[in-house]
């Protein structure tokens, strides 16, 4: 197994989670190093979003989560955010009744007023077309703009690790590139990114490493420069290892 050469930022081991009786994740081990982009791939229903939620504390979980040297196995999403682990959930869930500016401000809830103002401007600078609409209510934004707004929210706290859940869903190809480019800029600024993405090709182009998830377990871990990756992924997705052909 290829091991990341970098200093680990997020270490997940033996993580299990689910919804009520439905167990979705079974003993996940995963690492994200400082300043790297890791793509988390897998077919629908594999548990990618569940994994992010379990890491950020949105779902109850068992197992061990260590972030920046701190045990975060039982902490709340708020603690995670304060520690620099920010989760941008899927489905561009912004607050439609508030303005763009207010939405971004809320991401820094609890920060000192002066500092917050600066951070908000900094984050808005990532997406000028959002910044232009700062006084519009979020309900007037298109789906793509809402997604950009959600990512902007994720930037306010200068996270050490940003988890993006399907940031490209429902976006036109141009916008997808814009959003993913922002992720690349973040990496250059030293922020690690854990990216759940449906568009495998784009994800592979962007990421340093990749995990594939199927049926609640990690079925593949690789660096993106390894050969024949798409093929191996497809195998991992439809793997013969799980369901034997019917007699």
């Amino acid at each position, binding site marked *: 197994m290829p091991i990341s050469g970098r200093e680990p930022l997020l270490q997940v081991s033996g993580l299990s989670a689910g919804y009520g009786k439905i167990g979705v994740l079974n003993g996940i081990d995963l690492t994200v190093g400082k300043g790297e982009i890791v793509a988390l791939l897998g077919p629908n229903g594999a548990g990618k979003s569940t994994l992010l939620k379990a890491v950020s504390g949105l779902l109850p979980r068992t197992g061990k989560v260590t972030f920046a040297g701190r045990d975060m196995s039982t902490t709340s*999403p*708020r603690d*995670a955010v304060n520690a620099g682990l920010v989760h941008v959930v899927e489905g561009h869930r912004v*607050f439609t009744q508030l303005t763009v500016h207010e939405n971004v401000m*809320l991401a820094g809830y609890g920060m000192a007023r002066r500092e917050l103002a600066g951070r908000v401007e900094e984050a808005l600078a990532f997406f000028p077309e959002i910044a232009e609409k700062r006084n519009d209510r979020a309900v007037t934004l298109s789906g793509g703009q809402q997604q950009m707004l959600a990512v902007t929210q994720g930037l306010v706290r200068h996270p050490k690790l940003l988890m993006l859940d399907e940031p490209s869903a429902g976006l036109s190809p141009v916008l997808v590139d814009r959003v993913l480019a922002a992720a690349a800029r973040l990496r250059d600024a030293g922020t690690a990114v854990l990216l759940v993405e449906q568009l495998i090709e784009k994800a592979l182009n962007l990421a340093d490493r990749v995990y594939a998830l199927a049926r609640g377990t990690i079925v593949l871990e690789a660096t993106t420069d390894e050969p024949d990756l798409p093929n191996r992924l497809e195998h991992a997705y439809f793997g013969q290892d799980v369901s034997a052909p019917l007699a």
Partner: protein
Amino acid sequence: MFQSIVSYGLAVGAVYALIGITYNVMYSASRVFSFTAGMLGMLGGVLGALFIHKWGMNAVLGFVLVLGCGALMGLVTEILTVRPVLKSIEQHLYVLSTLAFALMIQQVTAIEWGTEAQPFPVLIPIETGTVSAWLDQKFLLPLLACAVTIAGLEYLYRRTLIGRAFLAIAEDSYAARALGLPETRLRLASYAIAGIIGTLAGFTGAQMLLAYFGNQAILSFYGFVPVALGGMGSNRGAVIGGLALGLFQQAANFLVGGIFAAVAVFAVFIVVLLIRPEGLAGAATARRV
């Protein structure tokens, strides 16, 4: 007569509106309709009379203390009756837990305070009769409280970050949690605010309604009517609905008698809800399986 209909109707309507807002504030923070709204109104009157009239406390101090007790009641409501059932799959357990708590408080009041309506002190020491009936403090105070509450909430929601956090939680508590907003603390704060508004309603309305344990049931129902008609969560709807309800009741009291008014309000309540379950001002929401 016209003066009496308007001033009394608006005043009692303002109390209904404030109780409606109390329902709304709690609903926004937790999607819970709490039976404690009427209880808070009742307590505002009873505690006010207890502190100021019985214990001879200074009116301002008593007022602050009553609101403090309201906030405390709000906190207890959240911790005892709302938080434990929010996680439950069963959607309507909160109806039962808040009802139980409200009944407990009502019964304690009935026993310790008595079942008779008791007087509430005149707050502003002016001789009655020296000012015009339009400016009677027992009519003006509830209206003033309603205006202050609306302005305060407007300021909170529109001008402060914490107010926006309330709105965010009301709209999408999951996303708010993911964003790192302290959802539990904010919900507690909402219940405390609701406690303050509810007791404020009861306190300012008590010169009219007296310090009476039976006000709980009356305020629970008549405070809910504007919420149901105006659309849940809508404070504007609650204020308009509350004032209209007060005027209607009082007009009916004058013109045809109180029992008819009660029957009419109830009939309107049922019919409107059957035709437009989301309320006159509410928007239909799509059903998702």
